[in-house]
């Protein structure tokens, strides 16, 4: 269980990115985090595994307070949290297998990871995860030889290789076509269901968020303006999050233009 209390972040430039964010994510819940660009979605996700230092408030994961951790303890906490990135963020010149195994880095000593001598269980897990995401035959390929959708699957396998207690997902579909986007979202949803794994998915696309999450949190200018069931996302609520727009038209456009690479909702969101 993840619990955020009064989390705030002010960058040293003086920009206030997050203000008093509080919510709780119980086990197995997939949370869709939506909001316009610059609303603080990315910052929020990165505060949880401390890639960004929060400036106030508390974050606790299964009763471990994360905000005060340093050094080794911080790395031990990070290995409990899997993260899936925008545009995959694979190490492009390493093989697929090394990318997946890098999910174990928090568990193995430096000399083992340097010699690529991981435990047998870790390797077996990596093979089975690659099979699960449909890349069983690709383990010796270099990551930059894969297509976008395949790379994101490797990214998912890397996060699961950590055996995480929480999944943080940052714009998983940002550079994928609509069909692949849906496959990736379905895959993330499936693995969360199987493992009773809570996840926070930061996503531009309102339709995808509604379709694949149990709960939606809407962020605007660093504050929570909506927190509820996906069905609760009425035009009024969307206006509160994104600003004035003809939502009926947007929904219609989106369902009609499946083949388009970027869905209109993204453009709308960025136009605000």
């Amino acid at each position, binding site marked *: 269980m993840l619990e955020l209390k009064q989390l705030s972040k002010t960058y040293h430039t003086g920009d206030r990115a997050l203000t008093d964010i509080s919510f709780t994510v119980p086990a197995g819940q997939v949370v869709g985090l939506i909001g316009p660009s610059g609303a603080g979605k990315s910052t929020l996700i990165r505060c949880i*595994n401390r*890639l960004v230092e929060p400036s106030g408030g508390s974050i606790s994961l299964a009763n471990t307070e994360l905000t005060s951790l340093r050094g080794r303890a911080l*790395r*031990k*906490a*990070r*290995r*409990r*949290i899997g*993260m899936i*990135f*925008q*545009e995959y*963020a*694979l*190490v*492009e*010149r*390493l093989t697929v297998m*090394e990318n997946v195994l*890098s*999910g*174990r*880095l*928090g*568990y193995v000593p*430096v000399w083992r*990871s*340097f010699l690529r001598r991981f435990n047998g269980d870790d390797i077996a897990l990596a093979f089975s995860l690659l099979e699960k995401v449909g890349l069983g035959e690709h383990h010796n390929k270099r990551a930059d030889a894969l297509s976008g959708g395949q790379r994101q699957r490797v*990214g998912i396998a*890397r996060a699961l290789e*950590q055996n995480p207690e929480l999944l*943080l997902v940052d714009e998983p579909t940002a550079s994928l076509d609509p069909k692949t986007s849906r496959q990736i979202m379905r895959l993330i949803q499936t693995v969360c269901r199987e493992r009773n794994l809570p996840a926070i998915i930061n996503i531009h696309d309102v339709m995808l968020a509604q379709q694949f999450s149990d709960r939606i949190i809407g962020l605007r200018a660093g504050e929570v303006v909506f927190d509820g069931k996906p069905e609760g996302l009425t035009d009024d609520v969307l206006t509160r999050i994104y600003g004035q727009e003809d939502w009926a038209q947007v929904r219609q456009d989106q369902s009609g233009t499946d083949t388009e690479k970027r869905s209109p909702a993204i453009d709308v969101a960025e136009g605000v």
Partner: protein
Amino acid sequence: MTQAQTQTGPTWQFRSGKQQLLRWAGWFWLVALTVFCWELMNRDTIWAFVADAPDQAADIGDRMFPPAWGYVNELWGPLWDTLNIATLGTIIGVVIAIPVAFLAASNTTPSRRFVRPVALLIIVTSRSINSLIWALLLVAIIGPGLLSGIVAIGLRSIGFVAKLLYEAIEEIDVRQVEAVRATGASGAQIIDYAVVPQILPAFWGISVFRWDINIRESTILGLVGAGGLGLQLQASLSTLAWNQVTMIFVVILITVVASEWVSARVRQAVL
């Protein structure tokens, strides 16, 4: 570009009056500086010697040809030494340059305030001083021979390799680093899994490039006693055996062209 209103109507000028003036002042200053330097430099030049140069050139040219082809048999040993100076020196330089580069790169240095300036100072010192000067010093300190040449080449290579390498480190994709950090990896593991794979091609390219330059430089280190072909060159020059000098030049030229070819091929392969 400006328009100026005059009695005859608007005229078009390429630059405004002030810019024009500044430009002319700049050119004037450059010409004046050059003339001044020229005068200063040639205060002690004996122009009779300079006027004599064509005759001298003809004389030397006469003695240089035909080259002493048979002399090549005495050059194999020095050539082998030259290659070893360049190769071993490059290895030493590269091995030392790697940690220096990581200490100098602003995204991997342990301390920007204290460690980074020291690393940058090492790089600047090594880069500013030519390998021949390093060799001159080392021959005076540890005596003539191959070791002085190897260390000289090594010392000069540190700055070159470390500078290019730390620039490569500073240009890596930070998202890959962030992704590895998010798995709970330690500092050493982040360097191993996220930084090294990204800079490896640049590293091999830089090393081979420096090796190629070192081959050129090691051909002359013998002039100050640090072994290799230069030693032979010095001997031939001091006995005015110009046809042997020509032969040495031919060997140097072939070696340099060959090493340039090798280096170009390897760089093509890794990049």
